[in-house]
């Protein structure tokens, strides 16, 4: 069991998303960095899609009220268990009474969210097939809302023996993608792409885009070149998914994120490919990003590469859990 000690942290319980209820107006929600969630779960021997806690604001503190294994992935936040510094992308063992503190994301990384995983996943009820928090409508996750000081959460399998004390090479190192030191995201052009003038299209790919402070789990509002349509576009409402890049009348793109509406009507310049959504989910507020034009075949291959990395993680962790190597004098 863990007790939340922090307030106003915007932390939520998320799994890989609520799939299959789009036709009722229910978006997917889910972890902004789905790769970090899956990896953290695999470190503990969980199903990759078990529910974890996504932490976007720091400092963040929890107390373990029982002995508990846990994994921390995503942003390296100089985490400490009581006074002991913890390695990032690692599994650990907490004793009852210990306090886990996450500080500000540190170092040269461009990451902004941490994922905390527990044995068996966070034990909250499944709603419409998922344990992700649905903020609009207030259901799923922990009582359909962000976590508050005093909330108590349980691991689904607290008794399960977990080998801990090992970790992973972070995917930002294993699967790098950047241009000029900035996070880069592959984009497939969308239905209204050619409805924008050539100068705007060129500028979209060539320039840097700043993630403004008006950005959150619903959408990332970008600042940069004003994208001009050839003629005003008024569209019928249609389904959309996380990653879709809309351009409203002011010409500044909004990337729909995990809590976005499952439908919309603004022109669609393109969509960040599914394989790169985790990179986008980590991009900090105020940071600048670049876009890379891609094609269907490359985008599908990128998704397979991401899935192959997770499969490798699962295999290696299983090997280590069954035949651990001890390395000490």
């Amino acid at each position, binding site marked *: 069991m863990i007790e939340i000690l922090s307030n106003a942290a915007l932390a939520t319980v998320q799994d890989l998303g609520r799939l299959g209820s789009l*036709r009722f*107006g229910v978006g997917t929600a889910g972890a902004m960095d789905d790769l970090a969630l899956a990896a953290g779960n695999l470190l503990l021997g969980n199903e990759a899609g078990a529910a974890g806690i996504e932490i976007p604001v720091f400092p963040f503190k929890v107390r373990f009220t029982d002995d508990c294994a846990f994994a921390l992935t995503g942003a390296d936040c100089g985490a400490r268990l009581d006074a002991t510094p913890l390695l990032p992308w690692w599994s650990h063992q907490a004793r009852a009474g210990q306090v886990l503190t996450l500080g500000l994301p540190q170092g040269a990384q461009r990451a902004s969210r941490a994922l905390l995983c527990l044995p068996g996943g966070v034990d909250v009820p499944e709603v419409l097939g998922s344990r992700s928090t649905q903020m*609009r*409508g207030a259901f799923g996750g922990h009582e359909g809302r962000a976590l508050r000081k005093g909330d108590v959460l349980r691991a689904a399998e607290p008794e399960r023996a977990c080998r801990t004390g090992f970790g992973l090479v972070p995917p930002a190192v294993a699967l790098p993608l950047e241009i000029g030191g900035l996070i880069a995201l592959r984009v*497939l052009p969308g239905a209204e792409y050619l409805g924008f003038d050539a100068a705007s299209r060129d500028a979209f790919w060539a320039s840097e885009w700043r993630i403004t402070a008006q950005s959150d789990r619903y959408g990332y509002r970008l600042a940069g070149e004003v994208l001009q349509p050839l003629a005003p576009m008024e569209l019928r*409402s249609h389904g*959309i998914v996380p990653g879709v890049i809309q351009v409203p009348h002011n010409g500044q793109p909004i990337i729909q994120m995990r809590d976005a509406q499952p439908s919309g009507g603004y022109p669609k310049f393109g969509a960040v490919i599914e394989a790169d959504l985790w990179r986008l989910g980590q991009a900090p507020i105020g940071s600048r990003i670049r876009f890379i034009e891609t094609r269907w075949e490359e985008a599908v291959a990128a998704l397979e590469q991401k899935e192959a990395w997770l499969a490798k993680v699962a295999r290696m962790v299983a090997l280590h859990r069954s035949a651990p190597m001890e390395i000490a004098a």
Partner: protein
Amino acid sequence: MTSSTAGSAPTVSLLGTTALLFEAPGAMALDSQQRIWALAHEAAGWPEVREAVPGMNNLMLSFVHPPRALDALKARLDAAWEAVAPLTREGRVVELPVRYGGASGPHMADVVAHTGLSVEQIVELHSAPLYPVYALGSHPGYCYLGGMDPRLATPRRKVPVLSIPGGAVSIGGAQTGVSASAGPSGWNTIGSTTMAFFDPARNPPATLQPGDRIRFLVEGIEP
């Protein structure tokens, strides 16, 4: 104004690798929407498709896994559209009392300014039709309605509003709808009603479904 559906052939476009979007050609119409419902029913059973999500004379197909043979799927979709017969369904009628204008309709003035109609004319035109539910989307339980009088059409707002309340009755472009819960919106709110549109514990969780109809009753016009 250009529409992406100008022309006589349907268009298929990509939403990243997560889904594709099929848009029916021609004017927004109920019989087109009935064919979309039929197409959704058929495509929902295809192995590549996780979910078929009708929109306003369009259909989003989310993928289980992005198919390598994308062109083959597109061809199958086009062929199915040609072959499909409208799925007629006359569902139930739900009547919603609406308080129009004033604090309940903070963007009524923008609709007046764009359409050139008076508040009374707007209320009369808005409350006259029996609106079919074309699709659900936007947020849990929200219904996209067809059949709004084109004289009421008002473009979506330049900058979306950060939060409008549940029960807000709004106009966006040529469409109208009622918010099922509080949240951001780019539409113009002209009134307010009360109704429980969604219960996640129920099966299905949404109160209304495509084919049901809504009528707005004028409870009052606020100054």
